[in-house]
């Protein structure tokens, strides 16, 4: 990463560079960062939320192998701290726009494992009525606007949601998640310009996991310092350790506070890593096992668990209890999805236009 940056960007921490030894978190400044509520209970919540995403997706792998769920499935494993940390900074009135790698965002947003699992099964009880699948999760009641499978396609939409809130004098923030791959698309730059120009209440969250499918960041970006590039549009931009959920939460809270005071869009580059392949179809030939293993030393769930154990905030029993709760929840979600009715074929043409069917049941 480059050293020189404009004054408005800030580097909270850097991820280990491939080929170099991973930084450990011991003594990492962000470990001492006060979280929003700071209490033990809060850390437990963060841990549970990340574990829910992890276990949910591990179950997805099994179900995919068993051909229970199909289509493109993009796992978030390794990146959980981003969804969970950012979501902590948002209120239910804020809006969220996401990509095709959105199980984590959806679950962190409070869409139930049951509704997401049913969607993967293509059932009527799914959060998109079985029309979206893994890549298109929606929940209007939670202001969760997808689930966009076009790289960078959600960004303009997010600007519009933010514009509407601004025009109506509402104090809401729209949060848009996207990958580092979006930086190469014009839509990112059009939206960054528009949002900064109009001072839109928009939180741009770039999940820099260093790869766009099989193309490494330095092979798809001429300038890999993403926060610096975002800052060039005149918005506040930070690079943050995306493996440390508390650092993420802290940065997101600061950004959201800034946005709510009317200072326009903020950008967070969250340096993270996906432990799994790009999608279930991907044989993952483009990166070394050793690199993946190095990043796994900084597993966001492991980091938080270690921190909590060191502080005596988490015992084996408590962890087992959380794990059991999540297992039950996911078991139930799978069972419910298995039982749930499939959408009747007669409903095929429903919701093409508003007059072509009844609202979601």
């Amino acid at each position, binding site marked *: 990463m480059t050293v020189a940056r404009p004054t408005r960007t800030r580097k909270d921490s850097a991820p280990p560079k491939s080929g170099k030894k991973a930084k450990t978190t011991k003594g990492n400044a962000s470990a001492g960062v006060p979280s929003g509520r700071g209490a033990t209970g809060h850390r437990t919540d963060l841990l549970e939320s990340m574990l829910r995403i992890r276990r949910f997706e591990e179950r997805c792998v099994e179900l995919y192998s068993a051909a229970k769920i199909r289509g493109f499935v993009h796992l978030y494993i390794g990146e959980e701290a981003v969804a969970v940390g950012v979501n902590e900074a948002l209120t239910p009135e804020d809006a969220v726009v996401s990509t095709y790698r959105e199980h984590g965002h959806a679950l962190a947003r409070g869409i139930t494992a049951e509704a997401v699992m049913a969607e993967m099964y293509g059932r009527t009880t799914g959060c998109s009525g079985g029309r*979206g699948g893994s890549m298109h999760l929606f*929940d209007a009641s939670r202001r969760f606007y997808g689930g966009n499978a076009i790289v960078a*396609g959600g960004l303009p939409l997010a600007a519009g949601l933010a514009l509407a809130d601004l025009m*109506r004098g509402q104090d809401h923030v729209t949060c848009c998640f996207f990958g580092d791959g979006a930086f190469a698309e014009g839509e990112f730059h059009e939206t960054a310009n528009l949002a900064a120009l109009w001072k839109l209440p928009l939180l741009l969250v770039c999940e820099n996991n260093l790869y766009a499918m099989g193309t490494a960041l330095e092979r798809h970006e001429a300038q890999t310092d993403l926060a610096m590039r975002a800052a060039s549009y005149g918005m506040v931009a930070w690079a943050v350790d995306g493996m440390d959920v508390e650092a993420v939460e802290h940065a997101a809270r600061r950004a959201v506070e800034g946005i709510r005071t009317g200072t326009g869009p903020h950008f967070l580059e969250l340096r993270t890593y996906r432990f799994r392949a790009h999608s279930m179809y991907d044989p993952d030939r483009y990166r070394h096992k050793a690199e993946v293993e190095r990043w796994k030393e900084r597993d966001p769930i492991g980091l938080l668990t270690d921190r909590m154990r060191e502080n005596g905030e988490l015992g084996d029993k408590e962890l087992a209890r959380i794990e059991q709760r999540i297992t039950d929840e996911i078991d139930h979600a799978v069972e419910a999805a298995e039982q749930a009715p499939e959408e009747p074929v007669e409903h095929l043409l429903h919701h093409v236009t508003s007059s072509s069917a009844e609202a979601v049941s």
Partner: protein
Amino acid sequence: MGAGETQEAKTTYREAMREALREALRADDRVFLMGEDVGRYGGCFGVSLGLLEEFGPERVRDTPLSESAFVGAGIGAALAGLRPIVEIMTVNFSLLALDQILNNAATLLHMSCGQLPVPLVIRMTTGAGRQLAAQHSHSLEGWYAHIPGIRVLAPATLEDARHMLAPALADPDPVLIFEHGSLYNVSGELLPLTEPVDLDHATIRRPGTDISLITYGGSLPKALAAADELSAEGINAEVIDLRTLRPLDGAAITASVARTHRAVVIDEAWRTGSLAAEVSARIAEESFYDLDAPVERVCSAEVPMPYARRLEEAALPQTADIVAAAHRTVD
């Protein structure tokens, strides 16, 4: 603007559209207009001239040259409960926003199982005839008419320019309005509205018995002129204005062909894969036994629109071409 617009009861297509916008902005404070140069410049075709002064820069919003971002922002704002009217300078430039229109506006309702309607209106110019060459002159509305989940309108008359916007805004789904560039200066007396303009039905602009001339938008005046010529020869042509290109009013087409037994379809798009192709296919499917002659199509030549006047005229469907096609079906 200028010379042609006088103090009489006459109005232009441009003014009719502007009046529709003004009415919409006055009627509902959720409505706002956004696009390149809609504000200070007054709209690249002068349609929104004066609206900035009346409604302010929040509601008549100049955007950067970012078709994808501001069309997408229109979609997001519609999702959040506003009623945006997005202007794109021409259909050619709309291709930079095609992703947003097709992958977001047209699909969100269905993919979300009815949770996310997109009450958005997008206006743009289309068509040739002003020597603007290939990157400003194409008629691609037929491509948009291909897409389920959106409504596609082509107001061809002063009345439709004036009165289609309100029902378009009332539609809970995305509506695209195509304004043919050659129509803006058309002037005449704006007829009073006898019944609400509905966006589901084609209309008969001139009743007839011998042949159906089926068209829309910028080709309507040419079809009407052709009908005049034909009537001088004793051929009584019916002129159907499709008005709404999606959903297409198939029943109106079938009914007309059942009366006249002959059809000429006029469409400024390229013939291959055009809306005219769709209309012809429908006639083949629904009206085969009513036909006394093969369907004729009058479309643009399969060439990027040239600049040179003679070449452009030769590329476009002209009244004489329509008359000739009509003769081929009647003779």
